[in-house]
């Protein structure tokens, strides 16, 4: 007999038993201990069909296959680049994943990506040892030129992006800026100087109020008010 011990969207702490029974499955942020399903982190627990999920409220970014992230080049090797991912592990980008251009034998790899450059890339594989492989091949994956990078809480990134990108689209339209959001919590913004701060302040506002309902309308009002000024 399965017994679910939490209410929907209730705050859970690490070690808290969320459910007892073999009918339910542990989802992200939870694990099974015998019959029990236990919370791994601090977050909002919820029941989704047969799985118990936990939406993390804090913590650093954990790399996951398929994530689009913004990285900084920290090393140029003889067969690829090492990237800083804003997590505990660095990523490796091999030559074949970096560009579709032909790279001559012995070419200087810094002409493609140099130290300190930022790139938007996609994680293709994370091994059990947390070795991360990324690729630059795919829509929207590119080297970032101009603009600036800001750091936000990676757990708030889904709220900043919004449903089907609605939130970030709204900011882009209102501030006439280019924005790329990395799932690792780095955001690239390229805007006119007068609009740049508004875009950043809006993102900070979303970050601070991410737990409230009706955020999209609130942000819409905020942007309209600010743009009119």
């Amino acid at each position: 007999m399965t017994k679910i011990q939490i209410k929907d969207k209730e705050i859970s702490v690490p070690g808290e038993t969320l459910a007892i029974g073999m009918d339910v499955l542990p989802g992200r942020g939870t694990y099974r201990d015998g019959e029990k399903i236990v919370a791994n982190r601090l977050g909002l627990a919820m029941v989704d069909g047969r799985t118990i999920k936990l939406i993390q409220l804090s913590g650093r970014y954990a790399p996951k296959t398929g994530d689009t992230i913004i990285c900084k080049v920290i090393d140029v090797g003889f067969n690829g680049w090492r990237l800083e991912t804003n997590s505990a592990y660095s990523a490796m980008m091999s030559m074949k994943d970096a560009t579709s251009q032909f790279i001559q034998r012995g070419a200087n790899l810094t002409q493609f990506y140099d130290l300190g450059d930022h790139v938007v890339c996609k994680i293709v594989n994370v091994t059990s040892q947390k070795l991360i492989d990324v690729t630059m091949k795919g829509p929207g994956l590119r080297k970032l030129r101009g603009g600036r990078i800001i750091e936000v809480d990676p757990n708030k990134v889904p709220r900043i992006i919004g449903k089907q990108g609605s939130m970030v689209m709204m900011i882009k339209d209102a501030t006439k800026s280019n924005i790329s959001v990395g799932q690792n919590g780095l955001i690239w913004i390229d805007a006119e100087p007068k609009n740049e701060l508004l875009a950043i302040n809006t993102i900070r506002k979303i970050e601070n109020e991410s737990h409230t309902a009706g955020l999209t309308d609130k942000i819409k009002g905020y942007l309209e008010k600010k743009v009119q000024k």
Partner: protein
Amino acid sequence: MERELRSHIIKLLNADTRLDGRKLTDYRKPIELEYGVTKTAEGSARVKIGETEVMVGVKLTTGEPYPDTPDQGTIIVGAELLPMSNPEFEPGPPGIQAIELARVVDRGIRESKALDFKKLCIKPEEKIWMVIIDICPINDAGNLFDASSLAALAALKDAKYPGFDGEKVDYKKKTDKKLELEKLPIAVTVIKIGDKFIVDPDTEEEEAIDGRLTVSSMEDGSLCALQKGGDTPLTEEEISKMLDIGIEKGKELRKKL
């Protein structure tokens, strides 16, 4: 230094704004000053400029005077850049950065004659008061120079002599006799990035610095110390422009004391 960030900072400066939306010669807000933050020091102060936070303690001890100045006391300024305040700082003996910070603060106080060293003399050629000023950055978010020298001055203002019977110092006994401050020198670091001048840089701006000039000035606008840093040279015209900014901003900071 990341080239992209540097060119972005210059682009913003040309539009008369900065990364956090400040004007070029604006300090971060709030600037907070708190006296007497530690019990064990004879005088102490904490200064916050935006997110930068510095604590300074003043200890008074007796010692022998230097042979060339037998009737004068002395000051010793030390700075320790704690690894907790900035991920770039390493534990161990002070590096170039810490030594420069201590020397800039020292020179401001020494050359302005803020303390009358003759009044620190107890008995010529035998005993003097030594004023030890220790600088501890709690959080380095840029502009340690200005924060430290303001905190050092505040700590000196706060300092009171410990009990002294002519032989030994009794630190448990506190007196009401204050360390006399004759002048109030304020240091303002003016930064050159591209061809623009700014004050109070944050961490990102500090990485993009071309040249910097720390200007210590008095109440009447006269100069008492300068320190040049950064890789690029400055022209005469640039220096006089930076001095004007430094003196002007010094007046603003002095009100916080």
